[in-house]
């Protein structure tokens, strides 16, 4: 494996020494580009009670391309599909090499606190959300209790 760019080493060190509150990202020992992420649901959101597992991978061209991030814990959210893929502009067209792992993880946490059913990835969920928001929020809360780890 090619040696790890200094920037990735620096970012990893900082994630460990100065972690983002409510988010834990640990690189695999045998692949330092692959991170296990634990993310607490933001308070006063239906995901509040849970801790969600994600995987994050830094492709060879990082930071010229965005990291690949995916939810491993099942989650009921209009911008996250059944496979855990996330619809977030900074992960796709709006990526910039000035962004970092920590800013991406913070954006995802913010997305949990502010679902956007008008720009959906999971169509059915988004439909539910638009039809009856309070019911959808209730479902999201149930799923959190059922699938996510307790805080």
């Amino acid at each position, binding site marked *: 494996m090619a040696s790890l*760019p*200094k920037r990735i080493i*620096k970012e990893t060190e900082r994630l460990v020494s100065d972690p983002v509150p409510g988010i834990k990202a640990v690189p695999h020992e045998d692949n330092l580009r692959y991170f296990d992420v634990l993310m607490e649901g933001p308070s006063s959101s239906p995901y509040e009670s849970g801790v969600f597992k994600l995987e994050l991978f830094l492709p060879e061209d990082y930071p*010229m*391309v965005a990291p690949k991030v995916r939810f491993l814990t099942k989650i009921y959210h209009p911008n996250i599909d059944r496979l855990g893929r996330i619809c977030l502009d900074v992960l796709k067209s709006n*990526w*910039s*090499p*000035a962004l*970092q792992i920590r800013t991406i993880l913070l954006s995802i946490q913010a997305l949990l606190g502010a679902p956007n059913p008008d720009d959906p990835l999971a169509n059915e969920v988004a439909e539910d959300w638009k039809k009856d928001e309070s019911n959808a929020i209730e479902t999201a809360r149930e799923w959190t209790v059922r699938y996510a780890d307790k805080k």
Partner: protein
Amino acid sequence: MTENAAEEASGFDVVSEQPSTMDMRSLQYVDPLDHLTCPICQLPFITPFQTKCGHIFCKSCILETFRSPIGQKCPLDRSPLHYKEETDGEANIEEDESAETSTETPKTRENDIFPAPIIISNITDDMRVRCLNLDRGCEWIGPRWSIKTHLLLDCGFTRFECNNELDEEPISICKKLTQRRYLDGLNSCPHKEYGCQFCGEMITKPDEEKHFTKECDKNLKKCKGCLLEFPLKSVEHHERFCDKFVEKCPAASIGCDWKGARELLTLHQETCIFTRLKPILDEKDKTIGQLRESTSFLSSKLEIILDSIVQGKVTNVGFPLQLDEVSSYSGQRSKRDSEEDYVHLLMELEGLRSDFMRIQPSISALEAQQQMISGLVAQNTHLMEDMNNQRMGLNSVRQQIQFLLMDRRPRGGMMESLMPRNSVPSVAATVSKESLSDDEGSSAGRSNKL
């Protein structure tokens, strides 16, 4: 023969046929990197370039971004940036076609990125870095601008190709990558093997150090304890277990200065008072630490209680919330702990009381001073009144004098010349005269008078 471990460590090599490229981004900086770092590689700028939107990146970082799917946009604010690489042959041809006539200055659109102010590269070039051969043993530290010179001309750990001829037939060149310190001052190939001075095994110059310390069975060193000789590679291991090796008492940290052979240690420890005290003192240390913690917690809570008592008196409201907090804390703790806390609270109160007693005398002194001050203020008021009365009297006297003067004026200027100039009446006279000569201009009137 296996390659020397120190040589395998990564570092800087100079190889013919390849341009000696140095990865500036692998440099280790001595000081923390809080400022002047590129938003893309997050390291101090290397050839900083500025965009027309005012942002600065390394030249190579921003150009890599331009070639990536992100394209020619500023990574910080996404504003579009125009740039055409000068070295790009195709681009040059296109330019030539579009501007055939003006050969000297081809009319190209100006680039939106250009070198940043020189001071920025000066500062980043002055940052202190470690040698790239640190892992091979070079301790050099210097400004970033000088690292290339150091690596190419000075550093003994930079590897070069060995250009010496080998003894073999037909004659050939060695070409082995070798650290400069093994090549310098030698006319022959340092890879020529020779017998070890101790064991006779065939070794080469670059391998010598490793052979002596890690391999040779005959390179002997005395154990500092038993004075027997062991191969250098194993003497450290032996010393760790040698009965005669001199050790300090484990209780040295709390004051025992006994030193002696390891075999005598158990005997010493039987009589060593420090050794017996150590577990107790360690335990005490732990307890003190815990106590310190709970004391600081309690004193912060006590402050809240005292606050709420004081404020409760004033507002009659109190602070139920903070009191709840306090009681919930003690609820978690065992009964014995809370008794201890109670005793501690009493002590704290006692302390506050004694503090108060200590302050009391100065409070009464302050009160006495306060009284004195109010007495002085009253006196002062009296004096003021007196003074006002005097002033009023004076005013009435002045008016009377003026009246008298006015009365006399029609009879001639006699009185005026008889009066002393500086006295009050004379001033009054001047004023009245000036007001009379106002028609001719007051300045003229004044200069006449003086």
